[in-house]
């Protein structure tokens, strides 16, 4: 044993000198801080107003280009999707190049080009840069859109939507946007099947012509290129882009909810809840509290910090928990997010709100603040490894009107922040009492504890497309043997029977309603099989007319005449069908009996009708009388009552409609049938 120890001791002696100096018990001290060089950018403005930003970095023989066309966000309304579809249409053809040519040329260079509704992103090797500019500029400036490509994009978009409906993250993002900004703000708009269906080529062309203009655009080029090289290239290929005044838009500023509101999307297959705590926030680079706000958010959850440590490392609820304080020119947002197993959904929300509240009421310990300052300063330096970071700084300086040395002073600004500043920022930016709490998860397992979180306040339910519904409205199954057809037959019987209905060839009806103290008169003319005329008049003067002659539709209003197209035409066409109940199949309408629902104390069958083009309406039939009592479509809800006999047929004389939040009471004053209406009446 002794002998064998000798080599061991010898070897110890050998390595000891090195390790004797090594004290492992404490982290080693850092070397002197390296010089942080922000890096320079060059700026130039072309005659057409295009702002060019160049950041040179010659390490690798490549360049990347990023264009931002900085128009005010556009409200898309019932056609939501046309801006992004316009972005997708870019690159599908120009005056001189086909789509295949564009794609082939880009791919052959090994380049990557991606067009968006605000410009493009492109990367290529330096040796290909001229060719790359040529193609991109052509695709952007001389775009030629065509219907076939629109239809392809529409189909892809619809499939994408179908896919998103199954993804808890996508469902959550969508509802979250809608709740933060509201549907009256462009940031809160979401595409739907109907809106995508309604997008026309003309809309995209108008949008492209009006908004894709150089005078509001920034082109940032980064990489193995100098301003001296870039400027002639950009002038050559983007110089012919015509400037033009671009429409401006102003929107009212979204407000946070008055109280915490839990919004739930039931996804019965979920094994985790996707949670977001969110609201709109006003924050922009250059704001007095921008840097303290950002720092405060880092402490909370801008990395593996308080939320992460609490929800993951202390409680084991989740794989990760983070928060973002997003700046924006118009309106920013705060979003805290995590995904947790179903059983701790409520606990996770409590902990998120607790951490938000804690920052507002407890001063952050100096040691923690120092650590976060070090982290933010260090990662700021790390981010400078990418030249794209410097281009991003340049864009912010230009867009937000920051002083030229804003980012050079960034680190010293961070250094100066105190715990008091952080608390001040938390009080400004954190609203643990005024947040949207958005949960996508399995309602059955999470809803009870969730309800206990906001006593006296109801959980709001949304479907996977962001439509709100009342979960108390439960459909009961219809009894055995009852079908959509039998409900329909009973209805036809109740209003007079097929025989009498078949003899009816036209109807003329009048009704009145009062809107804001004014009386409106509706005169409806219908003629079998599919002609329709509606006149709306006020004080005896016709204000508006809708007519459908069996093929075309025309809408007349004080603004002038407009041929009905797209969704408007589809609606008119569906509306004009003379008693579709007589023969659904012929009109390619499918009817599905969904079950029994209670409508203000009356038991009713609910039937969903799907028209060609996927327009849907739900109609409710009184179980006892068989009469139609309610109709719900995208346009709104209408209740029918006061059925009266007109020559052996029953018609509702009272209609209560709710259309886009507006309540309308329509009173029928007169109904006449078989007046032998002439076709000329419906002529366009």
């Amino acid at each position, binding site marked *: 044993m002794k002998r064998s120890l000798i080599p061991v001791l010898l070897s110890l002696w050998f390595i000891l000198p090195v390790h004797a100096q090594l004290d492992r018990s404490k982290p080693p001290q850092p070397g002197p801080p390296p010089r942080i060089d922000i890096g320079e950018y060059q700026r130039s403005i072309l005659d057409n107003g295009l702002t060019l930003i160049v950041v040179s970095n010659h390490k690798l023989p490549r360049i990347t280009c990023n264009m931002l066309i900085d128009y005010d966000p556009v409200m898309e309304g019932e056609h939501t999707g046309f801006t992004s579809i316009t972005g997708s249409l870019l690159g599908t053809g120009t005056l001189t190049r086909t789509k295949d040519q564009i794609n082939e040329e880009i791919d052959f260079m090994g380049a990557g080009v991606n067009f968006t509704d605000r410009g493009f992103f492109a990367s290529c090797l330096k040796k290909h840069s001229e060719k790359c500019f040529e193609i991109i500029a052509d695709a952007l400036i001389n775009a030629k859109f065509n219907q076939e490509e629109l239809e392809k994009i529409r189909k*892809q978009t619809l499939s994408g939507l179908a896919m998103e*409906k*199954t993804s808890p993250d996508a469902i959550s993002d969508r509802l979250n946007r809608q709740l933060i900004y509201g549907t009256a703000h462009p940031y809160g708009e979401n595409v739907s099947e109907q809106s995508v269906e309604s997008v026309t080529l003309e809309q995209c062309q108008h949008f492209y012509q009006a908004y894709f203009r150089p005078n509001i655009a920034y082109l940032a080029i980064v990489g193995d290129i100098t301003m001296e090289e870039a400027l002639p290239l950009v002038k050559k290929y983007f110089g012919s882009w015509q400037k033009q005044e671009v429409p401006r838009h102003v929107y009212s500023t979204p407000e946070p909810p008055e109280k915490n509101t839990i919004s739930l999307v039931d996804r019965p297959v979920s094994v985790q809840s996707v949670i977001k705590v969110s609201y709109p926030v006003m924050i922009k680079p250059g704001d007095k509290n921008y840097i303290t706000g950002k720092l405060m958010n880092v402490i909370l959850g801008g990395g593996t910090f308080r939320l992460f440590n609490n929800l993951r490392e202390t409680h084991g609820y989740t794989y990760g928990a983070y928060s973002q304080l997003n700046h924006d020119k118009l309106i920013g947002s705060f979003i805290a997010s995590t995904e947790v197993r179903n059983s701790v959904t409520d606990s996770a929300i409590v902990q998120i709100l607790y951490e938000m509240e804690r920052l507002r009421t407890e001063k952050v310990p100096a040691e923690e603040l120092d650590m976060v300052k070090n982290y933010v300063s260090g990662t700021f330096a790390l981010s400078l490894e990418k030249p794209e970071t410097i281009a991003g700084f340049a864009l912010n300086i230009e867009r937000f009107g920051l002083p030229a040395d804003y980012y050079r002073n960034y680190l010293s600004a961070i250094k100066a922040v105190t715990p008091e500043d952080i608390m001040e920022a938390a009080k400004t930016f954190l609203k643990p009492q005024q947040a949207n709490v958005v949960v996508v998860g399995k309602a059955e397992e999470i809803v009870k504890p969730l309800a206990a979180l906001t006593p006296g306040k109801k959980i709001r339910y949304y479907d996977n497309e962001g439509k709100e519904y009342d979960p108390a409205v439960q459909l009961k199954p219809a009894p055995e043997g009852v079908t959509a057809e039998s409900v329909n037959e009973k209805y036809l019987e109740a209003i007079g029977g097929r025989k009498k209905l078949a003899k009816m060839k036209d109807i003329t009806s009048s009704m009145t309603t009062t809107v804001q103290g004014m009386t409106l008169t509706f005169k409806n003319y219908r003629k079998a099989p599919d002609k329709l005329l509606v006149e709306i008049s006020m004080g005896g003067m016709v204000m508006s007319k809708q007519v459908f002659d069996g093929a075309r539709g025309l809408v007349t209003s004080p603004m002038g005449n407009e041929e009905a197209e797209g969704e408007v035409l589809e609606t008119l066409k569906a509306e004009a069908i003379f008693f579709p109940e007589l023969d659904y199949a012929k009109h390619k309408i499918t009817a599905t009996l969904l079950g029994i629902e209670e409508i203000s104390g009356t038991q009713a069958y609910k039937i969903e009708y799907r028209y060609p083009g996927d327009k849907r309406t739900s109609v409710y039939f009184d179980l006892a009388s068989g009469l139609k009592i309610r109709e719900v479509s995208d346009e709104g809800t209408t209740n029918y009552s006061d059925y009266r006999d007109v020559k052996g047929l029953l018609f509702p004389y009272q209609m209560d409609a709710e259309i886009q939040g507006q309540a309308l009471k329509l009173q029928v004053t007169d109904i006449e049938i078989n007046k032998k209406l002439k076709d000329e009446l419906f002529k366009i």
Partner: protein
Amino acid sequence: MAKLARKIAALLLVLSSFGLMATGTKISFVHYTLPNGLNVILHQDNSKPVVAVTILYHVGSKNESADRTGFAHFFEHLMFEGSENIPRGQYDKITQNAGGVNNANTSQDRTFYYELLPSNQLELGLWLESERLMHLKVDSVGVETQRKVVKEERSSRYDNQPYGSIIEETFKRAFRVHPYHWIPIGSVQYIDEAKLSEFMDFYRTYYVPDNATLSIAGDIDIETTKQLVSKYFAGIPKGKIPIVRPQVKEPPQQAEIRDVVYDNIQLPAVIQAYQMPAMGTPDYYALDMLTRLLSSGESSRLVKAVVDQQQKALFAGAFPFALEDAGLFIVFSIANMGISPEDVEAAINTEVEKVISGDVTDKDLQKLKNQVENEFVNQNASMAGIAENLANYHVYFGDANLINTEIERYNKVTREDLLRVAGKYLRKENRLVLYYLPKSEKK
């Protein structure tokens, strides 16, 4: 709108691609081994005050036993618990306090850890990594917490995501005897059963200097760094337990395998997985280029024909999922609305058959080479990427200099090679075909 499809595809691509670094600008480095067997690779680039300290352990899920799947990845989480000198919960804080970030990931073949730091914190990075290699400290509180965290990770990334189980279901069927049968996240049952004592055995076996590669890139001085590496790592003893690597070979597939998975989805997906040789083998490079011919760029075969012209798929892409022992050539597609998976599969097969029957031009080949060239230039962009690739090339191929020369292997590929490997591997008998269908269609 096809965002989600792209996300899935990007994930597949990240999982399936590594390497093909090369020249453009030559990456210089020094590579040496400490007496305890630790491989050290250093790359100096003083242009930005940044350093990446990385360490690769040659252990992954393929080293697990079938009743402890997920073990290597679970253990990766425990490596952040602390050491003799780093109390629990301090590992991240120390890194952050130094202005840095850290993370790790586990694949079938290796586990990779890194710190990205301002360059004056190089020594801290070495201390952090040497601490947990030398004397990791894990207690039962740490194990129980991470057990929950790992299960949530599995839920977030796989179980609660539409199409989230694709890789798992594909590998399960494509490899029947090789441990590639399971994927690094492992099964919930075995995550539940793993014990602290087993972790310590695992640690003593695989987390030893002679199974590790320390790769550092950035604003360093080579000589000083060598001294620092020696200071922190030379005293760590060699491993004493022999490492047994899986020797099992997956037998060649004899007949097409077809199966259906019902998932919480609306649009069907079709996955075709052809058996493919391991990364770095001669045929691998031609197969990698074939995947690009099929789906890299709008003008590629599947994107142009199946996605754009025929409108059959929302997304279609081919990925070379190459691992150390074997690989899969995966073609993944999601059907457009109203299109049956059979229809999508037939459309894809038509394009693949065209290639096999000789429809590849010299211009096609040049395009692929241009794409490869563009890609490797871009992959040399960050210090973290360079450090990781140097380590990968050393561990998998025994030659870190492939970071500069692997491109030549691509450039050697001929049109005939493309046709040959297409005919050899993209055969019906050599593939698994998996349909993902909506649960509502389950009878």
